[in-house]
């Protein structure tokens, strides 16, 4: 089953989708409007880039320390939590055990994010982004 459908089948998952990973494409299911999903996609992409930048700096201080490449991030709100793993995101309610279940499913379905994440995220810049980055 596709990861978004699988996540949306879980009670307490408000919305889930694929954010703009290689450019402007995004898709989603759940209680978001198209505009809100677009905003969520931009937010997820920005946060993913930010934490990856941090992990690159971190790795330069402590090589192979186990932080890089970043697999995802979680923002815990008062009643709602936003999770991102790879190029997928989900908005979930703060219900007991839901966050752990969602993270387990997302990590299992997305698999380990590889080192090419930044190259893919910057692909829209054109040229050889891998060469420019590394």
């Amino acid at each position, binding site marked *: 089953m596709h990861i978004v459908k699988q996540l949306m089948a879980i009670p307490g998952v408000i919305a889930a989708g694929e954010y703009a990973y290689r450019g402007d494409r995004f898709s989603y299911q759940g209680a978001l409007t198209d505009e809100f999903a677009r905003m969520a996609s931009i937010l997820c992409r920005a946060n993913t880039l930010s934490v990856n930048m941090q992990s690159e700096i971190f790795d330069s201080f402590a090589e192979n320390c186990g932080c890089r490449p970043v697999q995802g991030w979680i923002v815990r709100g008062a009643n709602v939590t936003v999770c991102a793993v790879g190029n997928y995101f989900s908005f979930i309610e703060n219900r007991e055990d839901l966050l*752990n279940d969602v993270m387990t499913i997302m990590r299992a379905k997305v698999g380990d994010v590889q080192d090419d994440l930044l190259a893919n995220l910057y692909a829209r810049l054109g040229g050889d982004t891998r060469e420019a980055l590394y």
Partner: protein
Amino acid sequence: MDLQKLMDLPGALAAFTYTDKGDLQSHVLREGTEITAQMLDLLTRSCVANLAIASMEARGWEALTGQGGFQPLKGFSVVGLEWSVVVNGNAGVVVKNRDADYEAAFQALQAA
């Protein structure tokens, strides 16, 4: 802050507190872990930055969409390849991904 309580979380490798500016204040390391105080000192600075950014995003999201439930922020976590760091307020814990209980970590930090 009782760092030992944070170290009791499943898979905990390190627990720490930091100032509002991100300076490492106190820490406990699991024996045998490769994480060092120097690593934590860098990590705490990113924790402050990430919490500030997430707080701004939560505020902006609520204002723009009219949706509630994000504020006040209860924490932020970065999931690395082998371990995750979970932070809230001025404290955080590093946990092994394979044993990580994110909910318990957020709750422990909230209660602390």
